[in-house]
């Protein structure tokens, strides 16, 4: 493709890890393009309140944190574009990223920071009522249920946090948890216990979402201890049962994934392909915390800086000695 520039770095994804990396790389004069198909800020942006991100003693809304991260990255020259990356390739001298609208992006380095997406229940009726009674984003669609009754599904931090947000809006929430206890942190569980319009049902697995016309009316669940069916009347179902990695676009790329589909890296956040790096929740072993993702973005940026110092086509002159030992593998133009 003519006049297609070779970027120093193309970041795939625009969540906290991606934007943190971009802040670091652009400040180091590493030309950086960020491609995002969804929301700038990733899943963090659709979190009602982030209370455990250091530096914000009163908490901060996910949307505001995402806005601040974006503004900081753009301040140093990061370019953000809409791009749904469907495939990457390790070319002989440059890396390539292809998007759904048939664009080809060339880069000396790629950073995979695509994060996770919500896991589906795979219950009967879930697909049929998606967007009209079945939802995955409380901050988006929760306000449409003011004064109504909801079912929330899941026992982790997201389920607890988002149910607390929904409880401020709706009449009542039944939380269905498959296991016999919460996985969420104690502070959230205590808040749930003190919220009068939330009822928690353990050992309860949802099997069917039943509606009439455009409206959800009830869910059918089973108590996995007694095998008894139990029904909950509801106007909507919010699903928070965990996350799956956004790595489908890596099929056929040669990037090594773990058994759950997350990207494997070394301790410097390099993947098995030299020049392709990974940071944030999509990385195998990630802790799914915004603070960790931001840290990983910074680490990846420093490794990328060292790597780019070795790329002849990108060298602009002598670089200062880097004291940090990062990815020990050596670049080869071959």
């Amino acid at each position, binding site marked *: 493709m003519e006049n297609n520039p070779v970027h120093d770095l193309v970041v795939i994804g625009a969540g906290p890890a991606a934007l943190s990396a971009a802040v670091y790389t652009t400040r180091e004069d590493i030309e950086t393009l960020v491609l995002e198909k969804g929301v*700038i800020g990733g899943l963090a942006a659709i979190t009602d309140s982030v209370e455990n991100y250091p530096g914000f003693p009163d908490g901060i809304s996910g*949307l505001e944190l995402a806005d601040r991260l974006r503004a900081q990255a753009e301040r140093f020259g990061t370019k953000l574009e809409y791009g749904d990356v469907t495939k990457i390739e390790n070319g002989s001298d440059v890396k390539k990223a292809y998007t759904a609208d048939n664009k080809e992006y060339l880069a000396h380095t790629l950073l995979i920071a695509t994060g996770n997406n919500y896991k589906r229940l795979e219950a009967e009726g879930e697909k049929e009522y998606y*967007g*009209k009674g079945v939802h995955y984003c409380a901050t*988006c*669609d929760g*306000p449409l249920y003011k004064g109504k009754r909801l079912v929330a599904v899941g026992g982790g931090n997201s389920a607890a946090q988002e149910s607390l947000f929904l409880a401020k809006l709706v009449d009542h929430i039944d939380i269905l948890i498959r296991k016999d206890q919460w996985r969420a942190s104690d502070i959230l569980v205590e808040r749930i216990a003190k919220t009068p319009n939330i009822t928690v049902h353990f050992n309860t697995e949802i099997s069917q979402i039943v509606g009439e016309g*455009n409206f959800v009316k009830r869910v059918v669940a089973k108590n996995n201890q007694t095998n008894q069916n139990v029904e909950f009347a509801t106007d909507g179902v919010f699903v928070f049962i965990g996350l799956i990695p956004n790595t489908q676009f890596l099929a056929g790329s040669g990037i090594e994934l773990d058994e759950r589909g997350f990207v494997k890296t070394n301790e410097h956040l390099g993947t098995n392909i030299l020049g392709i790096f990974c940071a944030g929740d999509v990385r195998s072993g990630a802790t799914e915390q915004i603070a960790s993702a931001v840290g990983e973005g910074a680490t990846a940026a420093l490794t990328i800086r060292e790597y780019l110092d070795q790329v002849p086509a990108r060298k602009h002159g002598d670089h200062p000695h880097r004291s940090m030992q990062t990815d020990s593998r050596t670049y080869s133009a071959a």
Partner: protein
Amino acid sequence: MPKSITIFTTNTCAYCVMVERFLDMKGLKYEIVNLDEQPELQQEVLEMSGALTVPITVVTKQDDSKEVVIGYNIPRLAPAVA
């Protein structure tokens, strides 16, 4: 160029902000209807789109035909507002 664009949103919807930014980037004007403030319009949105979710973007073309885009869906929104 569409005749008009209306985005149905809620106060805390990040995807709605992304739709607004996309239209800003294209230099297009739009009206925002906040369903937090006007919940009485929810039924109308449901009937129009078949979905109870946000964002819903209604693009009115020059011939007064309407295209409804559900969610932050650039592959559908971009040609709808072209």
